[in-house]
C-alpha cells in the first residue's frame, strides 16, 4: 500500500498519515538546507550547493512520482477524489504560481509600481469567481476534465471539441513558458547550459506525471508549495528586519514606501540625475537623426571609427585603446538593414533610459488627464481579463475534481487563495524593500565601492544588472543602473547579505514553482487528448488501462514538443502567457457559468459563443499586437495602423474584455433562438446545483 493511496483508510486517518508524511518531509528538507549551510561555512564551493539543490529536488519529485505510480483511471485522472481540502489548496497554490509569479512578480512591481498591481489583483480576485460560480458545481458534476462538463451539459461533441481545442491552446503556450523558466533557473543555479537545463527539468516533470498522473502531481505539488513559500519568505523577512527591524514585511513596508516616495521626488530634480538622463536623451536623438538617412549615417560612422583607429595608431596610443578602437570598427553594422535595426534599437533603449523614474505609489500615471484615463481604463481591463481568465484555466479548475465532496471543494478554494495570498501579499513589500535599498543605499555610492553582488550578476546575465558611469563623475546615479525585473527576487539574499545557500534555496523555489505548474499543464493537455478526444469521441469502447497508457504516451510527446519550442527562445513568450488568460476567459467562462446558472443555455448557443469569444479576442490581437500583426499581415505595425485598429484604447493583452461579453451575448441570443435543451440535460443542471437532493446520497455521484 502506498503512502499516497489511502486505500483502506477513512478520510480522517488518511489526512493524519499525510500530516505525518509532510511533517517528516519538512523536517528533512530543513535538515538538508542546514547541512548545506554548514558545508558552505566549511568551504564547499558554490557550484556544488547549486548541484546539490538541483539533484535533491528533482530526485525528491521523481521519488514521489515513483511512490504514487498508478494505472487506475480514477487515480490517474483525479487522484482518487480523496485529496483533503487543505492539501488540495496547497497543490492548487503551486499549480497556480508559476515561474512568472515566483521570480517575475516582484520585479514587475519594482519596474512598474502601481501598474504592476493589476497582476496581484487579477491573479487573486479570480478565485472569488472560482469559489462562487464554478468549483462546488464542477465537483458535484464529478467527471475528469473541463471539456467533460461541456460535453455533458451541451450534448454532443461540438462544445467538447471546442473546449479541447481551447484547453490545449491555452495550456501549451503556458507550459512552454514554464519549461523556458526551468531552463533559465537551472542554468543560473548550476552553470549548465540553458538547453541542458531544459532537459534536466523535463526529466523531473516527466518521471512525476508520467508514472502517477494526477495522484503523483498532487503530492509533488504539495511538496513544491512548501519549498517555494519558505524560499520566498526567508530573504524578504531578513531584508525587512535589516531595514525596519520588523520581521513582518507586509506591515513594515508602509514606512519605507514613504521614504522611497520622498527620495523619488529628490531624484526627479537631482542635477546629476538630470545630467545622465540628458546624455541618454542626446544619444536617442542622435540615433533618430541617423535613422532619417541610414546609408549616409552608416558611411559617416565607418569613416569616424576608422579615422579614430588610425589616429590612435599614429599617436602610438596604449595597446588597450587600439584594441578597443579595432573592436569598434569590427562591431559596425555590416549593411543598411543591420544599421537600421541597430539605430532603431539604440533609439528605443536610450529613450527608455532617458525617462525619469516613475513614482512607485502613483496610480495610473500619464502626462495629462486623457493619458491618465487611458491608463486607468487599461488597468481595469487587465484586472478584468486576468480575473476571468484565472477562473477559466482548465489546469486549475481540474484540481477541484480531486477533493472528496462539494463541501471540501468550497473549503479547498478558500485554502487555495490563502496559500496563494501568502506570496502575493508579500511581493509588493519585497519590491519596495529592494527599491529602498537601491534608491537610498546604492545610489550615490562611489563606482569603485559598489557591493559585490552587482558585478556577480552582471557576469551571469548583463540584462539582469549592469551599471556604467555615464557622466564620468565616479558616483553611481540611479539613471546609470540598468536592471532586469528578475534580479529583484534572485539577488535579494545577496542584497540582504545572506549566505549563498539561501540563494540556492531561492533558485530551488523558483524551480519548484515552474515545475509544479508545468506538471499540471502537461496533465491537462494529455487528458484533453486521451480522455476527451480519443475516448469520448474516437473510441468510446477503449478500456480504462488503454486510456491511461495512451495518456502517458501523449504526455511524453507533448512534453518534448514543449521543450523543443522553449529551446527556440521565442522573444514574445511572455506576451503569449498573458494572452492565454484572455483566450481562456473568452472561451470557457461564459459557457461554464451559464451552463450552471441558466438551464436554457443550449449547445448551439454555447458552441457559437465559445467560438465568437475566442475568435474576437484572437482577431483583436492580430490587429494590435506587433508580433501577432506580423504573423498575419505583410509589413509591420506602424503607430498609425495601430491607432486606427485600436478599439477604445484597449491594449492587446486585454483582448478578453471584448471576448467575454460577446461570448455571453452570443450564448444567450442563439440559445433563445433555438430549441431548449432536452429534459435529461435540465436534470443534470438541477443535479449539480445541490450537493445531494435528500442528504443521504454518499459522495462521488459520477465516479466513472
Amino acid at each position, binding site marked *: 500500500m502506498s503512502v499516497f493511496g489511502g486505500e483502506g483508510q477513512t478520510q480522517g486517518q488518511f489526512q493524519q498519515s499525510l500530516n505525518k508524511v509532510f511533517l517528516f518531509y519538512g523536517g528533512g528538507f530543513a535538515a538538508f538546507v542546514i547541512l548545506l549551510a554548514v558545508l558552505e561555512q566549511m568551504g564547499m564551493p558554490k557550484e556544488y550547493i547549486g548541484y546539490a539543490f538541483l539533484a535533491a529536488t528533482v530526485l525528491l519529485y521523481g521519488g514521489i512520482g515513483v511512490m504514487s505510480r498508478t494505472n487506475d483511471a480514477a487515480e490517474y485522472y483525479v487522484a482518487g477524489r480523496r485529496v483533503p481540502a487543505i492539501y488540495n489548496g496547497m497543490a492548487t497554490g503551486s499549480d497556480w504560481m508559476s515561474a512568472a509569479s515566483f521570480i517575475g512578480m516582484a520585479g514587475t512591481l519594482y519596474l512598474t509600481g502601481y501598474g504592476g498591481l493589476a497582476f*496581484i489583483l487579477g491573479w487573486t480576485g479570480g478565485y472569488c469567481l472560482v*469559489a462562487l460560480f464554478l468549483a462546488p458545481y464542477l465537483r458535484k458534476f464529478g467527471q475528469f476534465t473541463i471539456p467533460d462538463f461541456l460535453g455533458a451539459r451541451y450534448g454532443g461533441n461540438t462544445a467538447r471539441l471546442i473546449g479541447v481545442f481551447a484547453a490545449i491552446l491555452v495550456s501549451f503556450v503556458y507550459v512552454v513558458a514554464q519549461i523556458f523558466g526551468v531552463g533559465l533557473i537551472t542554468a543560473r543555479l548550476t552553470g549548465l547550459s540553458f538547453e541542458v537545463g531544459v532537459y534536466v527539468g523535463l526529466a523531473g516533470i516527466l518521471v512525476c506525471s508520467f508514472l502517477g498522473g494526477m495522484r503523483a502531481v498532487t503530492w509533488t505539488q504539495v511538496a513544491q508549495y512548501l519549498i517555494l513559500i519558505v524560499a520566498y519568505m526567508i530573504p524578504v523577512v531578513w531584508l525587512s528586519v535589516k531595514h525596519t527591524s520588523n520581521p513582518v514585511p507586509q506591515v513594515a513596508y508602509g514606512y519605507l*514606501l514613504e521614504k522611497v516616495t520622498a527620495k523619488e521626488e529628490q531624484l526627479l530634480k537631482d542635477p546629476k540625475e538630470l545630467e545622465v538622463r540628458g546624455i541618454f536623451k542626446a544619444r536617442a536623438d542622435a540615433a533618430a537623426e541617423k535613422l532619417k538617412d541610414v546609408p549616409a549615417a552608416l558611411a559617416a560612422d565607418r569613416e569616424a571609427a576608422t579615422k579614430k583607429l588610425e589616429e590612435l595608431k599614429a599617436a602610438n596610443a596604449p595597446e588597450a585603446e587600439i584594441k578597443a578602437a579595432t573592436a569598434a570598427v569590427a562591431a559596425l553594422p555590416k549593411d543598411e538593414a543591420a544599421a537600421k535595426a541597430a539605430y532603431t534599437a539604440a533609439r528605443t533603449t536610450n529613450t527608455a533610459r532617458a525617462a525619469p523614474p516613475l513614482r512607485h505609489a502613483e496610480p495610473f500615471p500619464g502626462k495629462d488627464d486623457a493619458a491618465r484615463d487611458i491608463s486607468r481604463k487599461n488597468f*481595469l481591463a487587465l484586472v478584468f481579463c486576468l480575473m476571468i481568465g484565472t477562473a477559466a484555466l482548465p489546469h486549475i479548475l481540474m484540481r477541484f475534481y480531486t477533493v472528496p465532496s462539494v463541501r471540501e471543494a468550497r473549503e479547498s478554494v478558500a485554502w487555495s487563495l490563502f496559500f496563494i495570498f501568502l506570496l502575493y501579499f508579500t511581493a509588493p513589500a519585497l519590491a519596495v524593500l529592494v527599491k529602498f535599498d537601491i534608491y537610498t543605499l546604492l545610489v550615490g555610492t562611489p563606482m569603485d565601492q559598489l557591493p559585490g553582488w552587482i558585478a556577480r550578476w552582471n557576469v551571469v546575465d548583463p540584462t539582469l544588472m549592469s551599471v556604467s558611469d555615464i557622466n564620468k563623475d565616479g558616483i553611481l546615479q540611479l539613471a546609470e543602473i540598468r536592471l532586469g525585473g528578475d534580479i529583484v527576487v534572485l539577488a535579494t539574499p545577496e542584497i540582504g547579505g545572506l549566505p549563498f545557500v539561501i540563494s540556492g534555496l531561492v533558485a530551488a523555489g523558483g524551480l519548484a514553482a515552474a515545475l509544479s505548474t508545468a506538471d499540471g499543464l502537461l496533465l491537462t493537455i494529455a487528458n484533453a487528448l486521451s480522455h476527451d478526444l480519443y475516448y469520448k469521441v474516437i473510441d468510446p469502447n477503449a478500456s480504462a488501462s488503454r486510456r491511461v497508457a495512451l495518456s502517458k504516451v501523449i504526455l511524453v510527446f507533448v512534453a518534448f514538443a514543449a521543450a523543443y519550442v522553449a529551446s527556440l527562445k521565442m522573444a514574445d513568450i511572455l506576451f503569449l502567457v498573458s494572452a492565454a488568460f484572455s483566450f481562456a476567459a473568452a472561451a470557457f467562462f461564459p459557457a461554464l457559468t451559464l451552463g450552471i446558472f441558466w438551464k436554457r443555455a443550449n449547445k448551439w448557443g454555447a458552441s457559437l459563443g465559445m467560438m465568437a469569444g475566442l475568435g474576437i479576442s484572437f482577431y483583436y490581437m492580430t490587429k494590435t499586437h506587433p508580433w501577432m500583426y506580423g504573423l498575419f499581415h505583410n509589413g509591420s505595425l506602424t503607430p498609425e495602423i495601430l491607432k486606427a485598429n485600436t478599439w477604445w484604447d484597449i491594449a492587446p493583452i486585454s483582448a478578453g474584455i471584448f471576448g467575454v461579453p460577446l461570448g455571453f451575448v452570443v450564448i444567450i441570443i442563439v440559445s433563445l433562438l433555438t430549441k431548449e435543451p432536452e429534459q435529461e440535460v435540465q436534470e443534470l443542471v*438541477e443535479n449539480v446545483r445541490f*450537493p445531494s437532493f*435528500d442528504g443521504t446520497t*454518499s459522495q462521488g455521484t459520477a465516479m466513472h
Partner: protein
Amino acid sequence: MQLTARHQEYWSKNLRITGLLLALWFLVTFVLLYFSRDLTFSFFGWPFSFWVAAQGALIVYCLIIWYYARYMNNLDKEYGVSEGESS
C-alpha cells in the same frame, strides 16, 4: 427528480448570497480602483489606494471565499442537502 419548495428556497438563498458577495467583489475591485487617484490619503503610511490594491483587496477576497464556504456548508445542513459523510 422533482424539486420541492424547500429545494427552490435553498437555491434562491444560494443565488442571493452569491449575488451579495459578487457585488462586494465588484465594489472592492472595480469601483474602489476607479477612484484610486482621489483616494491617496495616508493609511498607516501607505497611500490608501496603493494599500487597497496591494493588500486590502486581497484580504477581502480571502474573506469572501471563506464566508461563502462557511455559509453554504451550513445551508446544506439546514436544508438537508449535504452529502453523507464518507468516514
